[in-house]
């Protein structure tokens, strides 16, 4: 066991971890940030996406120790400072981009990373970018729509509700 320190959602945090402890388990169990989810054991589902030093990372692919000293942002840190939903979160609610909510934290984190690099993605670009995020509930329709809407594009022409 070693003590690991990192900045999470703007706050200095520390906790105990074994060498083999994954970042996702550290966040969930040591820091009690359970918004980041675990949906698989082969790094395929994207339920665990967080930002590490500004990059989207699957938190199940990284040891907690590797994030020593890093800036980590999880879904708990995505709302506006006043607690209201961010533009992306609000777009997901407005366009019904979530059902059971289990994939949602990963989707929000991936969407934020996409829009940072590509502020006006096409439908095809959104779909391609989400390749590593599995959702079983929505058939992706409203997720893609929400992300395009969050980028400021008019989605009213997208196939009816």
């Amino acid at each position, binding site marked *: 066991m070693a003590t690991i320190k990192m900045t999470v959602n703007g706050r200095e945090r520390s906790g105990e971890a*074994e060498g*083999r402890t994954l970042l996702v388990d550290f966040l*969930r*169990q040591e820091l009690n*940030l*359970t*918004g*980041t*989810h*675990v*949906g*698989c*054991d*082969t790094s*395929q*589902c994207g*339920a665990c996406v967080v930002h590490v030093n500004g990059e989207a990372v699957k938190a199940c692919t990284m040891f907690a120790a590797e994030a020593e000293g890093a800036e980590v942002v*999880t*879904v*708990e840190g*995505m*709302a506006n400072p006043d607690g209201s*939903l961010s533009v992306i*979160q609000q777009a*997901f*609610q*407005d366009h*019904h981009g*979530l*059902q*059971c*909510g*289990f*994939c*949602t*934290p990963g989707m*929000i984190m991936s969407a934020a990373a996409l829009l940072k690099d590509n502020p006006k993605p096409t*439908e*095809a670009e*959104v*779909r*391609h970018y*989400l*390749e590593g*995020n*599995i*959702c*079983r*509930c*929505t*058939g*992706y*329709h*409203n*997720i*893609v729509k929400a992300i395009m809407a969050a980028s400021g594009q008019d989605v009213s022409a*997208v*196939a*009816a*509700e």
Partner: protein
Amino acid sequence: MPKDTGIGASTKRREDVRFLTGRGKYTDDIQLTGQAHAAFVRSQVAHGEILSIDTSDAEKMPGVLAIFTGEDFVDVGGNPAGWLINSRDGEPMKEPKRPVLAHGKVRHVGDAYAAVIAETAEQARDAAEAIAADIKELPAVTNMAQALAGAPFVHDEIATNQCFDWGWIEDNRAATDEAIRNAPHVTTLELVNNRLVPNAMEPRASTGDYDPGTGDYTLYTTSQNPHLTRLLISAFVLGIPENKLRVIAPDVGGGFGSKIYHYGEEALVLAAAKKLGRPVRWTATRSESFLTDAHGRDHVTKIELACEKDGTFIAFRTETMANVGAYLSNFSTATPTFLHGTLMAGNYTVPNVYVNVKAVFTNTAPVDAYRGAGRPEATYSIERVIDKAARELGLDPIAIRRKNFVKPDQFPFTSAAGLEYDIGNYDALMDKLEELADFGGFAERRKASEAAGKLRGLGINSYIEACGIAPSNLVGILGSRVGLYDAATVRVNATGNISVMVGAHSHGQGHETAFPQVVGEMLGIDPASVDIVHGDTSKIPFGMGSYGSRSLAVCGSAVVRATEKVIAKAKKIAAHMLEASEADVEFAEGNFTVAGTDKSVSFGEVALKAYIPHNFPLDSVEPGLEETAFYDPANFTYPAGGYACEVEVDPETGKVTVERFTACDDFGNVINPMIVSGQVHGGIGQGIGQALLENTVYDENGQLTSASYMDYAMPRADDLPFYTVDHSCVTPCTHNPLGVKGCGEAGAIGSPPAVVNAVIDALQSGGHNVTHIDMPVSPSRVWAAMNNA
């Protein structure tokens, strides 16, 4: 004008806020003081005799608190089958015991035979690996035809792998055979309804807790129906008195059927919690989910359609082998029978239907209801063989369907498979589909695809399903061992806001938003002041949970009935307050008014009076304002729809892409159109997944070769298009108070045949005489079909 509140409004979901900010509380998110962790030891062979289990090394490992094996549970009950099916000869089905942990034999890869409890999850897993079991591998059987042919037997004590041989309707068999013998045209199709893994994104998880001070148990678990889970554990498995067991299903990350059932892990964590006096938790890895969640579908069917040369249907006859896996999961015997055979007349006036289903034990994971459950299998068989018949007879696929549709003036209509469809308008759905899917523009689009070197096909489907499961009387006659009502309690608080406790469970369906729309509309108050409580047996009335598109049709009806009772009682109180006779008091828009006067009191004032009953008619009305209703439906509901799919096939690679997808559904009245559309989208995604991508493959030794997201092709965002969905064709259900039918499964039922019909149409247009390809219609299968035909 779309409404902005109440019934019919696309109200945004209130539950979203917690999910979007990471504040959902799923089972694995709940930490209890002093908790220990369980890990399971699972069979690596599909079939084997357990000769010995040596736990001595594991016991000495750090952090280990207890070890359980099958031996510890021989004296407790088994996980039962919820539905008794009798074979054609009257013999009851075979029901081998399904123990908490395997004992004597393991019967599929992943079958748990031991469990370790330790201080941490890692320690539990490490110790589980140190358990040395001597398991003699036995020959396994995974293929249904081989399993029916004889040994090896999955369960030696029953000396057959056939669970039952069911006929529906047996009395119609001779007439159907005769009709087919004499028919001018018979189309035959053999097909496989591919086995699927439900893959809710949240893996199953359970935490057991025991309070030695009170003798109370609590189970936190990923369940679609906490009361049913409690009943099964109490009455059949562990014998814990129901009043000593609280089952909490908190936020649940999708179910699709796989979380209806009780699983052995739930019993194990409860037994371990009792033994240790500490909470014991377990969360499945995705690999465990693949191996042990109940799978779906897995039918092999031969269907015959007999018809006149003009396309008039004379008879459907099917023979199906349905895989039930190694043990009977709770509803695995209902799925291929009463949720499948009873729908084998489709939307059609066909006079003869006969269905034979043989359920087969194999050395594979149990198979049970998965989104649609039996109805996708029925629809796929019917709608594929109709397309093939149309092609053979040179008829238009839409025209042949329309020719045989039950017409609007024929309802209520008793189908040849025995169900009474209360209402529908299948022609209207087809009209809508032709318009929205722009069939008129297809020829142009096909030309454009061909110019780009692609083949383009258009496939349609019209489906009917039986939802709102189910009338208890009817299912009782048919073999169900449970009732299928639901329940709601409407509690008006003194300050006028409302808590509604419901038996339905929301794991993505948006009940927390939709149910208040109903209550708000009925009481004339803002739905925001109504809260839904669900998922905790200590808080809610005894309800049967959510599956079979039943939440709104059954539990929603209970909510309506309970709200009506609240209004009736409030009216009595209002009459007293207004010094009027009850008969003269009218309730509208949240106010009680004496008819023909301006004397009125608001709902809120009445609520307050109910809890501060000064000057109250105590001799005729009790204080308080809280009512419960149980609702048992009179019939199933019958959603129906027309679906169209357009695909492009790349002749070079065989790859199929879905270019357009249109779904027109009749769900009866709709409470929240946004949520309904979302349900259809999700179903279509799963249906296209089944048609093009997903397959669950066991090799001949019973190893699951598609056991991770590397090998099992889950639909991803770039496999799917935007969909056009419509639910404007409405024939309100005739027998429930809201006129609603249920929308959760439609997409998964309606889409697979539309996709496969489209692929066949594309190949035919390219001059390939291909009449069938089994799902998933993968590039290699398409390529092989094109190059062999």
